[in-house]
């Protein structure tokens, strides 16, 4: 089975803890939803584990639109992970 490559982008303290602002990752086939991704990423290292310790607070956008954690990743080209927004 081919693995789908997706661009992941990180903001604010998620970016700082992971230590990257973006990366391209080939996701294994069992990572089908946003929730799967948030559970799988911490296995990549301590920074990811620290950033995603409380996955419920992490907000996600797929191709620059807000989605909930049940959203499927199929067809996504850019997945963004970030804390709740504090602009304004």
């Amino acid at each position: 089975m081919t693995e789908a490559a997706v661009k992941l982008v990180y903001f604010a303290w998620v970016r700082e803890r992971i230590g990257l602002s973006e990366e391209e990752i080939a996701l294994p086939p069992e990572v089908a939803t946003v929730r799967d991704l948030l559970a799988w990423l911490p296995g990549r290292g301590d920074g990811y584990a620290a950033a995603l310790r409380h996955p419920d607070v992490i907000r996600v956008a797929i191709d620059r639109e807000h989605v909930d954690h049940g959203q499927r990743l199929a067809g996504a080209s850019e997945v963004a992970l970030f804390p709740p927004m504090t602009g304004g």
Partner: protein
Amino acid sequence: MPAEPVVRIQAEDFDLAEEVAKLTAGRGDVGAVVTFSGLCRDEAGTLAALELEHYPGMAEAEILRIARQAAERWPLTGLVAIHRHGKIEPGGNIVLVVAASAHRQAAFEGASFLMDFLKTRAPFWKKEHRTDGTAGGWVDAKDADDRAAGRW
């Protein structure tokens, strides 16, 4: 047809009077202009600056989406939203919303709706820089902001 909102995400400062003038110049149908400016507070002298991070592309698209909802819901003659990014010192401008309408209620409500959703939906984050040189943290999102957005 609803007015097409103007949305800008920029590092540069903005001029409130200039934005108001652009919405009212040469027209006789505007009876009310409501403006909201969000400024950087010094937090009793402890804050040296706020650093505003945003998601380029999504920030503008998301505010435009919210602004279009406001323009469909209230009879606005014009709507402007400007949000700055980068380092902003106390007293500096962060955000501006200008809503113009024939009557005041639509202008008040349109501006208020836009701000409530901008705060909870637009991808911006604030990091504090403190005057004592210690590392400031990221500003926490407030439940009150979600409640404010929920009332609409």
